[in-house]
């Protein structure tokens, strides 16, 4: 039952062209145009395409997992979630299907962008690719939960702007689109965002500032717990509502 639901969810995700275009196409187009135009430049001593690749990969993966979970909103409005509650399907399997679909889409985004990066001359060894990808996947956990939370809080018509706005703001604040000027207290504060560490995970690969374990794990763990708790509350409120 679990495998069948996951399979159907993946099928639906990859048949949804509009969804694929925005989560995969956007970061890819941005990467190819911006990194392509600045191939010979470098930032903080790192070749620009490599630097920019880490940011775009994080941003694309972020969009993938948040928007996958937030699609619950539309399925709630359709009455599909209610229909599912009259079947033996467990809620956690339903949520897992959204998270898994988001992760697979994130992996696809990462793979496509990495290929594009290779095309623009980015060279990393297998160990660096693996470390970067693995840390990205860990850093995405709180955002997968955030997607499920948004899927319960928002109506489908406000979802597009909300998800677009949230992912863009997070990308900007976390340096996915380019470095923020350092030194300000404000910039230091962005380190409390899990997306900051998500972007940093990409930079580990090329020996940037790295990912100091304690702080990164703490931020990611705390956000996961808090968002998870909120998602559970939102789910309970949703299922108790007047029919």
């Amino acid at each position: 039952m679990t495998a069948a639901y996951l399979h159907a969810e993946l099928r639906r995700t990859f048949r949804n062209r509009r969804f694929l275009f925005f989560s995969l196409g956007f970061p890819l187009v941005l990467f190819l145009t911006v990194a392509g135009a600045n191939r010979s430049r470098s930032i903080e001593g790192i070749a620009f395409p490599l630097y920019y690749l880490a940011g775009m990969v994080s941003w694309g993966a972020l969009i993938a997992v948040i928007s996958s979970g937030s699609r619950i909103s539309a399925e709630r409005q359709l009455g599909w979630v209610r229909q599912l509650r009259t079947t033996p399907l467990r809620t956690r399997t339903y949520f897992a299907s959204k998270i898994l679909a988001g992760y697979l889409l994130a992996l696809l985004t990462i793979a496509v962008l990495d290929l594009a990066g290779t095309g623009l001359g980015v060279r990393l060894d297998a160990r660096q690719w693996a470390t970067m990808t693995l840390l990205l996947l860990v850093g995405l956990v709180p955002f997968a939960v955030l997607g499920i939370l948004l899927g319960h809080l928002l109506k489908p018509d406000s979802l597009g702007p909300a998800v677009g706005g949230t992912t863009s703001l997070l990308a900007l604040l976390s340096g996915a689109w380019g470095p923020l000027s350092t030194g300000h207290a404000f910039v230091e504060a962005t380190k409390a965002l899990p997306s900051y560490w998500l972007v940093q995970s990409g930079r580990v690969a090329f020996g940037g500032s790295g990912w100091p374990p304690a702080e990164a794990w703490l931020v990611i763990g705390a956000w996961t717990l808090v968002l998870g708790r909120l998602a559970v509350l939102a789910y309970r409120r949703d299922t108790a509502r007047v029919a």
Partner: protein
Amino acid sequence: MRPAEPRHGIVLEQLRKCYGPVEAVAGIDLVVTPGETVALLGPNGAGKSTTIDLLLGLATPDGGAVTVFGQPPARAVAEGRVAGMLQTGQLIDHLTVRELVALAASLYPHPRPLGEVLEVTGAAAFADQRTTKLSGGQAQRVRFALALVADAALLVLDEPTVALDVEARRDFWAAMRRVARGGTTVLFATHYLEEADAYADRIVLMAHGRILADGPATDIKARVGGRRIRATLDAVPLDELRRLPGVSGAERHGDAVALTCADSDLALRALLAAYPAARDLEVRGAGLEEAFFELVAEDDRTASGAPKATAHR
């Protein structure tokens, strides 16, 4: 093979559910034995959908208890012993009809064969179309297929034929008959007396969150499905009219009298034989809404403690 059924069917005891100040279900008692087909009949706002939500574990009671085959509804649902077709609910996109019904089948421990379900519901004709390309009637057939494929011991349907055309409605009930013959317990909500009469073994009449009547379809039909005769007729005491065969009640409106009839043919013949002066005759079915209204009014009078004898009909 389906596991052996516990003997208890569905039991509702003093079941209550409030939404804010509204008591949607106001303390109902109901027992459905396995294999029965029961219609919940009532006008909009009678509490039928809320009762169904409670049966499916979609809502939790504010009082009383509900068990399905001896288990709490959520448990029975989790074990796949119950399947529901809700009144609202659209289909998810990016799947074909066949894929969607197969998905529903995969959720149950012993689903009905996919091909059979598509055939019986008439969804086979458009099984390879995407769910978003269907007409309203086709989508309704698919929603029925989603419930049917479960092969659950209890099938609960909330207004299953709303939005269906005549042909689809006929197909639907033909399929339901097959299912009921197979031993499935069926409970469906409707506001069509004809449907309840034609397809249920038993009708449970609801209004204002209460059960007003519960019994074999023929009994309930006689009670709410009566006709009215209207005639201009002076100076005949109402008591005399009430004693005519086939007449169950009489009222006067100026020169006219209105007779409520259990058997209008008999009443009409008797009326004309006894009072040839009766003119402007008019016979019409007492509408279901009207019949409900009367039953509810009767129920209210009983509830408020008025002695039955003074409650003239």
